[in-house]
């Protein structure tokens, strides 16, 4: 059990606990906040795994933009503040499939890796990852920028107010 392991266990526990809270809490706003916790501890996990760029991008974009966007959506859809009773559908399909998938994958991975060890390599610092992107992965990078443009345009078009049909004529 190295220090890295201990750190990973701790951060992992926090992440899994927060994720469980996200999918089970009965207050919508708190789910968003628990998501922040989960994503933040994942960023910590990335740091332990010496993937610094990924970690900070995670914090910047996921925690900084995506979760904020989700909270905006929660506000704009007039989510009730406080406990709301009707947030969940019947649970057993979720338990069955989600539990099956999660535990099955865990079993698979445990079986694959047992208690082997790896050396933490040089790590994915900003310089190394940048070099890798612009050397080998330039095309996907450019395509992603087009994708972002398409998503931007699409989001604007979809949410225009005059595109909705007249309700309550």
């Amino acid at each position, binding site marked *: 059990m190295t220090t890295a392991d201990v750190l990973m266990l701790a951060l*992992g526990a926090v992440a899994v606990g927060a994720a469980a809270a996200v*999918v089970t809490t009965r207050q919508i706003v708190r789910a968003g906040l628990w998501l922040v916790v989960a994503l933040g501890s994942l960023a910590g*996990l990335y740091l332990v795994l010496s993937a610094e760029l990924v970690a900070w991008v995670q914090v910047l974009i996921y925690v900084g933009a995506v979760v904020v966007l989700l909270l905006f959506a929660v506000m704009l*859809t007039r989510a009730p503040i406080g406990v709301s009773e009707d947030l*969940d*559908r019947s649970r057993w399909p979720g338990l069955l*499939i989600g539990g099956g998938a999660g535990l099955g994958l865990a079993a698979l991975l445990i079986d694959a890796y047992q208690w082997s060890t*790896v050396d933490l390599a040089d790590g994915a610092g900003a310089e190394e990852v940048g070099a890798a992107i612009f050397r080998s992965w330039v095309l996907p990078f450019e395509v992603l920028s087009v994708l972002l443009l398409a*998503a931007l345009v699409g989001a604007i078009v979809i949410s225009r107010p005059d595109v909705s049909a007249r*309700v309550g004529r």
Partner: protein
Amino acid sequence: MMHPVIPYVIAALLFGLGVYGVLTRRNAVLLLMAVELILNAVNLVLVTADTTVRAALPHTGGVFALFVIVLAAAEVGVGLAIVLQLYRLRQSVQVDEVPLSYEERLGEAAGSGEAVPLDGDTWSSNARTASPWSVEVIP
């Protein structure tokens, strides 16, 4: 020196929790949050795989994790735009209350007394266009 099984198991458990959330939550925003969990589980696997797999191109896992983050951001943007439009149309974002056919929509409207535009017409500001093949250039 570390044991890669730990982050892998964490990822698997996150994935399972995400799937449970997708299947159980009724609110569309909460469903998107659960989808984020799934994507993060994948990211964790990718980053960990960077350390366990000797790839021909170094740091591929990290690169792909970045790409996934970008995709997730785009997806959340568009998804939330849809959710907002849905909210404008139906005043609610419960995913199991969306009517599946025109008849169901008429049935709901009859119950609540609201007006329903013509069939095949949800994207047109002119409610009289009834053809599903008519394409309107939105000004």
